[in-house]
């Protein structure tokens, strides 16, 4: 892909990160860490890969996306707003009583949300259902889902993995946000899922591991690898940084579900503005 397109996607991911910080700051609640870690993947999906139409969010042949780790709603809402599904201004209402932007994604309330999620483990199953429907009724759409690495501790996720492989759902592509942290600490300390790659291979999935799960070019390359894989679903294990892009949030599990104060918000926005300026500058090189 050309350098300019890549830069544009990186700029979009950075804008999404700014919107994440602002939403959680305004709401004084929400989940910044695991939203920042998937901003690049969300930008790649909604600004590069998926067949969607913001003016017609329910069109039948659209590609579907299910945020199985529904608590990363600030990331999804920022992406949908940036993409034009609803006004950026509305992000300020996140989690407030007079806003449609519920704490966790609600498909009945929010344009562009394909499935209500938040209870971990259920989203990936719903994505499997969408992919099964596509197969049974010969539809060409593809289904994407992002799962948390902590979410792998839910047994239902493995039921979903088993069923996706059994029904050879090559129209399904999952991403695991492997940032290594969950609410109570490191996942290897709380409940170690151990060799995720080997497990998923044993479940008969096509498994791709990205050593830098925040690298836009690598993420983009996985879409083609998934499409050419027939007869099995593809999963990308993204080795991400929780809190990516905000220095003091990076790799600190205490930022899983906590809002920044005014000073912290200002530092975060300032850092992200610097990143934006740097990327904009590169466009002219």
């Amino acid at each position: 892909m050309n350098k300019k397109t890549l830069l544009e996607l990186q700029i979009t991911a950075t804008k999404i990160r700014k919107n994440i910080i602002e939403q959680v700051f305004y709401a004084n609640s929400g989940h910044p860490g695991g939203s920042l870690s998937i901003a690049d993947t969300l930008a790649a999906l909604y600004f590069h890969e998926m067949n969607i139409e913001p003016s017609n969010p329910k069109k039948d042949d659209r590609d579907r996306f299910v945020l199985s780790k529904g608590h990363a709603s600030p990331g999804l809402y920022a992406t949908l707003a940036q993409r034009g599904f609803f006004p950026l201004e509305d992000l300020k209402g996140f989690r407030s009583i007079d806003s449609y932007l519920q704490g966790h994604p609600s498909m009945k309330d929010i344009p562009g949300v394909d499935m209500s999620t938040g209870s971990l483990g259920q989203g990936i199953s719903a994505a499997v259902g969408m992919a099964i429907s596509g197969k049974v009724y010969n539809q060409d759409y593809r289904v994407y889902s992002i799962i948390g690495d902590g979410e792998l501790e839910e047994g239902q996720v493995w039921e979903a993995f088993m069923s996706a492989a059994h029904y050879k759902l090559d129209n399904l592509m999952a991403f695991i946000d492997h940032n290594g942290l969950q609410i109570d600490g490191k996942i290897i300390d709380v409940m170690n899922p151990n060799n995720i790659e080997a497990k998923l291979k044993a479940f008969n999935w096509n498994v791709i591991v990205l050593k830098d799960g925040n690298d836009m070019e690598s993420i983009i390359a996985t879409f083609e690898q998934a499409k050419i894989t027939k007869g099995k679903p593809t999963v990308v294990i993204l080795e991400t940084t929780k809190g990516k892009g905000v220095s003091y949030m990076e790799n600190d599990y205490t930022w899983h579900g906590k809002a920044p104060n005014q000073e912290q918000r200002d530092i975060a926005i300032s850092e992200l503005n610097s990143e934006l300026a740097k990327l904009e500058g590169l466009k002219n090189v």
Partner: protein
Amino acid sequence: MSKKIATRQAYGDALAEFGKDENIIVLDADLSKSTKTDNFKKVYPNRFINMGIAESNMMSVAAGIATTGKTVFASTFAIFAAGRALEQVRNSICYPKLNVKVCATHAGISVGEDGASHQMIEDISNMKTLPNMTVISPADATETRAAIKAIIDYNGPVYMRLGRLGVPVLFDRETYKFEWGKGVQIKDGSDATIIATGLMVHIAIEAQEILEKEGISARVINIHTIKPIDKDIIIKACKETGAIVTAEEHSVVNGLGSSVSDVASQNYPTPIKMVGIEDKFGKSGKPELLLQEYGLTAQNIANKVKEVIKMK
């Protein structure tokens, strides 16, 4: 009332009968021969999906399919549908109000020999408390068939409670009309009203016959839609007969009896007695013997009617 058909059998037959609708897709969790979804599978194998022994996944998969505009039936035993997978039914199906019909068989203690682990006596309770959920509990094969047709035509979540045990066919297939949310008065009476659901309806009719011989006039009402419940028919019974006995093959905690009490107490306070399972687990045994041991009998209903009349 000679011919007996289990409501699960009528369900499987109805799926095969109405399944020509291409929009219908049926899921089961390795119990298709018991839930009778196998009848659908034989006719429409491409639209039958076996999800294996993984009920939680099945409910969320059903929700995902429903988001693509399909009418999804998801079947397993009631203990798993309304027990193990309850939170999936809540969050994946009811919260987004998706078009999934959870048709659960083997409800109640009439499951028989499998015993308490498989006898679901809390499903009405669990399901009726979920916002957006409709709860249907048919009394016989005719009503089951008509209810399946009705829920296909309805866009939204439904829980249907079906039984393993053969029950008498009470209604005529040619003339019976299923009215959504409407109770069915089977016998008129003036001294008290028996309000029953599911397999207790035919037992309630037997109770009415016992009472009639003793000179007591009991009205019999069949409630097939437990939620939304028919308030009018209950309030009318309270006003006209002044005493109510409810009968269900379910825990007396938060079942039909509780729904009837909710309506009566807030509209026309009336003495009520409940026949049901008294807040305890079932056990193994022949279905008919279990129904006797747990008091789900015509004689027990008749006795409760006499007691409640004294409370007037």
